[in-house]
């Protein structure tokens, strides 16, 4: 468990809060655009 969590912790700490915030913003906008313009693109995932 320790060996598993260690690389994960290292990976997470590489990202500062601003990077995480930017990723959240990008993901939010992508979801917004898909939902606003092409909802079947999201709904069709995996089919």
């Amino acid at each position, binding site marked *: 468990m320790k060996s598993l969590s260690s690389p994960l912790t290292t990976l997470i700490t590489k990202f500062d809060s*601003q990077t995480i*915030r*930017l990723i*959240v*913003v*990008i993901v*939010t*906008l*992508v*979801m*917004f*655009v*898909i*939902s*606003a*313009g*092409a*909802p*079947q693109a*999201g*709904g*069709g*995932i995996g*089919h």
Partner: protein
Amino acid sequence: MVLVVGILGGLTAGWIRAKVLKRPLRTIRLRCWGLVLTAFLLQLLIFSTAVRSAFLSEKAIAFLFVATQVVLIFFAWMNRKEPGIWLLGLGLMLNFLVIVVNGGFMPISPETVRVLNQNAPAGSWQIGNRLGKYSKDIVIETSNTHLWFLSDRFILPGWFTAPIAFSIGDVLIALGAFWFFWSIADVETT
């Protein structure tokens, strides 16, 4: 495809702009972003086969689809001061309008469907029905379509691999997305 160009083009252009101008990416705080996640997940639910066929009628799907659009409009309003969001919101409003006045789905004309699905077998789509299981589009004659000019009536040129119809609203959404992502290289204002 239009929306993908808006997102990827804007992200790429914004990132290159930041590199060229040697600026850090701007800190952006979107308000009520949880609403977008909610709308996205709800649409995922109503346009997925299992849930749709098991529990929901066409009317229920149309109602929920419109409800998600209302949620998205509220999100756009709450973030209207961010660059490009008002344009995204305007595009969304145009799509919302034509969807609402045509029964809860985006109208598409039989002529457009024939161009899109030239090799489709006879009977694979019908006027008055949705265009496929997962589609937001409903096939309606242009003469019977309210606000037809806002419907999915544009088609990408033939050299594009994917045949896709889109609306004026989709174009504005794509432009708004491009503008928003372009602005991530703007100078930070406090």
